[in-house]
């Protein structure tokens, strides 16, 4: 290379030997310099995609203008381009349809050859052939560019890894400190989707009692959360892909084309499979980076532990917050929930009703048939209430045979309708009493209803008003329903 050429190479080296935020930034600067030095009207970069065995044309500088383009050359097959990439030939030149020069973006590092891609230089207008000195200069510049491109990629990869490790630590902390399992899962799935930039993240958990793998949550790239609880797959299913993956079997052949866009991570705690985390890029159709896959793989262990802890926490919570006889929440759980609901309706202005329910002549049942039958009555009433209420309603055993129900989003007339339906169902209830003459005992209830904010704004006031309405029903023959606001005046 001439002295002038050496000088240019030094300037090129100085220009590129600094940090670039992205490979595109490096390439746009380098291509402009290469075009100037080689007097090429068009310089294109093909980047090597080793997994797909392709050289992908991504960027092109044409007369100082930057293009993002798409063309590809296969490298799996024997071809001059494959030989160039592998260093078997130094450069390739063509003079048809116009002068073209290909130079490899490769170098030999201590870890082995780094085969990054190819440079293509063209002179479509001037049609002047690339001379041997041009060729020698381009090869030098291509080598320098390859080393800088490799460094930029390494540095970016390190930054990404660091950022992701920070993310994982942050997510683990959020997850571990979360009290409610559902919100913890939501946060972590949103975090995984956002920080790893997946299109969608889904979580399925093993339900050992039901023998199923049950959907929990799905979060997409816009943060939208979808409840997957309706999805339940028997663990005995040999056909279902999720079950096979959970068992540690390889996904079926049909999944091979999706392997780079869908990732299954079985969640295991102490050799027990507790669930499956599935991430995908099906919407964007972009490949999931290998480094992301392996990083997430190591994170799956932490998710599994946290999920398991949260489940145990949930079970302990359930035991301490629910009445073992009726299965209904206990009063202290109700009180906590009531406060949350009151806080919510004060802000949203939505209605909220409270119903107090009392089993008619319950003391008589106990006295006549014994406590065992009394317990059966309460158990059946509790089960029927849990079965018939709306998902948003919240019943609790208030004490003895009294049950209280929170009815969110229900105005007084809605609450009366809901409770009318429930009392009608309860009337059909028959508790078998084999030793009695009648062989069974029926159940009726009395109900009083109050509504926020008309009847009161505090929990105490609303319960008292509902109780007043209940008292009115009980004193007027029982087996009925009354809203506080409909009590005949004077109310008290």
């Amino acid at each position, binding site marked *: 290379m001439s002295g002038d050429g050496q000088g240019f190479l030094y300037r090129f080296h100085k220009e590129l030997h600094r940090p670039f935020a992205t490979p595109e930034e490096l390439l746009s600067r380098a291509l402009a310099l290469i075009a100037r030095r080689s007097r090429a009207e068009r310089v294109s970069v093909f980047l090597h995609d080793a997994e797909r065995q392709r050289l992908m044309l991504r960027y092109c500088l044409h007369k100082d203008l930057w293009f*993002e*383009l798409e063309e590809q*050359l296969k490298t799996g097959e024997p071809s001059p381009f494959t030989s160039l990439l592998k260093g078997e030939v130094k450069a390739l030149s063509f003079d048809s*349809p116009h002068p*073209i020069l290909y130079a490899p973006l490769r170098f030999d590092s201590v870890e082995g050859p780094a085969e990054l891609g190819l440079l293509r230089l063209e002179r479509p207008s001037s049609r002047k052939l690339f001379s041997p000195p041009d060729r020698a200069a381009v090869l030098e510049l291509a080598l320098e560019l390859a080393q800088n491109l490799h460094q930029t990629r390494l540095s970016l990869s390190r930054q990404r890894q660091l950022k992701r490790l920070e993310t994982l630590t942050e997510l683990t902390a959020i997850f571990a400190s979360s009290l409610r399992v559902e919100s913890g899962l939501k946060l972590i799935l949103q975090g995984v989707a956002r920080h790893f930039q997946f299109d969608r993240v889904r979580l399925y958990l093993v339900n050992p009692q039901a023998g199923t793998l049950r959907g929990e949550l799905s979060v997409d790239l816009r943060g939208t959360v979808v409840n997957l609880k309706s999805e339940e797959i028997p663990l005995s299913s040999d056909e279902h892909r999720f079950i096979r993956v959970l068992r540690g079997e390889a996904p079926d052949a049909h999944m091979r*084309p999706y392997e780079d866009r869908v990732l299954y991570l079985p969640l295991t705690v102490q050799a027990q499979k507790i669930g499956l985390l599935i991430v995908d890029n*099906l919407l964007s*159709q972009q490949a999931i980076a290998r480094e992301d896959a392996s990083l997430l793989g190591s994170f799956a262990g932490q998710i599994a532990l946290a999920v398991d802890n949260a489940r145990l926490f949930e079970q302990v919570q359930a035991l301490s917050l629910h009445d073992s006889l009726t299965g209904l929440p206990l009063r202290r759980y109700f009180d906590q929930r009531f406060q949350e609901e009151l806080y919510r309706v004060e802000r949203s202005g939505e209605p909220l009703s409270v119903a107090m329910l009392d089993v008619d002549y319950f003391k008589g049942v106990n006295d006549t048939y014994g406590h065992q039958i009394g317990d059966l009555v309460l158990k059946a009433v509790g089960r029927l209430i849990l079965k018939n209420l709306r998902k948003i309603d919240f019943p609790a055993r208030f004490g003895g045979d009294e049950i209280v129900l929170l009815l969110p989003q229900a105005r007084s007339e809605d609450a009366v309708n809901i409770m009318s339906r429930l009392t009608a169902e309860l009337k059909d209830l028959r508790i078998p009493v084999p030793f009695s003459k009648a062989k069974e005992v029926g159940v009726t209830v009395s109900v009083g209803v109050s509504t926020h904010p008309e009847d009161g704004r505090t929990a105490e006031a609303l319960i008292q008003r509902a109780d007043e309405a209940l008292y009115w029903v009980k004193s007027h023959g029982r087996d009925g329903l009354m809203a506080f606001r409909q009590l005949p005046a004077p109310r008290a």
Partner: protein
Amino acid sequence: MRELHFWVLPNNGFDTFPTLKEHLALFYRGHPDVRVTISVGTAAALWTNLFRILKDPSSGARPHVLQIPSHWTASLAQLGLLQDLRELDPGLDLARWVPAARDHCRVAGSDQICSLPWWFELRVLYYRQDIFRRLGLDPRRLLAGWEGMREVCRVLAEKWRGSPGPVYPIANPNPRRGVSMADVAPCLWSRGGDFFARDGSRVLFQRSHALGGVSDYFDLIASGWMPLTGPNGLAPRNLFDGSCAMQISGRLPRRGKKKLVATLEAVPVPPTGGAAATLLGMQSLALLRDCGEPEWAYGLLRDLADPAAEEAYAGDIGAFPAADGVAWRPLAAAPHFREAFERSLGAARMLPNLRAMGTLEQVFERSMERLVGDVVQRAYEPERLHQEIIRASAEMDYILGLNS
């Protein structure tokens, strides 16, 4: 100085920049304190960059105005990427554009307008009269149907084997060594097949009519009649560089190549089945949501979508303006192609503007890429096409399910 970023597709190859710059004059006259930076990238690059913006809004460049294939409008709007133009211009009326384009400006069932039509192309088959004459082939008879066109390919391939000059019977209109939905659509529709159900609820192209249409098109590649690679690693050869005898294209030939244009004639795309069918491919302009400067960006979009501006720009790139009333004016300068385009118009359809259309196109192209790989490695079997279509259909059905 205010700066607006405009992302365009390579509408005019490497001349996209200079052509577009000339057409920004109108906007600059009204906005002397604004500079427009143009970035040119393919649809795949656009797709990748839009997902980058979506997933990491703080990273890299963002456009104010962008060109999109019109059938991506619903996909991108659904992802929350496009600005509702009615918010900026409540009086915006789509009646100014050709009727076919109007449904492609919005998401079905929504009043929002998320893109404005810019220009379109209508696919016809061009052929070299001189070559047909020299070989004694009757184009009108042979090119009236797909079988006849295959016969021409067979004759030309046989004749040109090992000879210099134009070496391929027919060019691939896809410059990426690939096959897209747009490429196979006329064949598939002509056989009575379709890609998707009308309501977009399920995939239909695994059915026999559609499968036959894809197979008809792919057969041109598998038979070696349609080049997948260009010379020396350049883009594939085409009719307009003199390398092929025929090409399906939606544009009018460029004005600069007078000698070549004089040898060309056009006919509607030969039907593969009972019905004539072709593709009308529309390009639209949209604003990125939350791009900043929405009023200025809308000013640029409105000027570009002005009927006179559309006519001038489309004319320069050999396309047709989307503005109603001026759409066919470019044919006045190319009267000998008029008949082919007019006959094709009645049989023209557009790819559907489904909520997941962008993704569905990617899935289809990936499948075709695998088949092209088989052809290149001389491992292609017609049965593989069937398998790929079934696999792609299953994936597309799943994706449609996600968006329902």
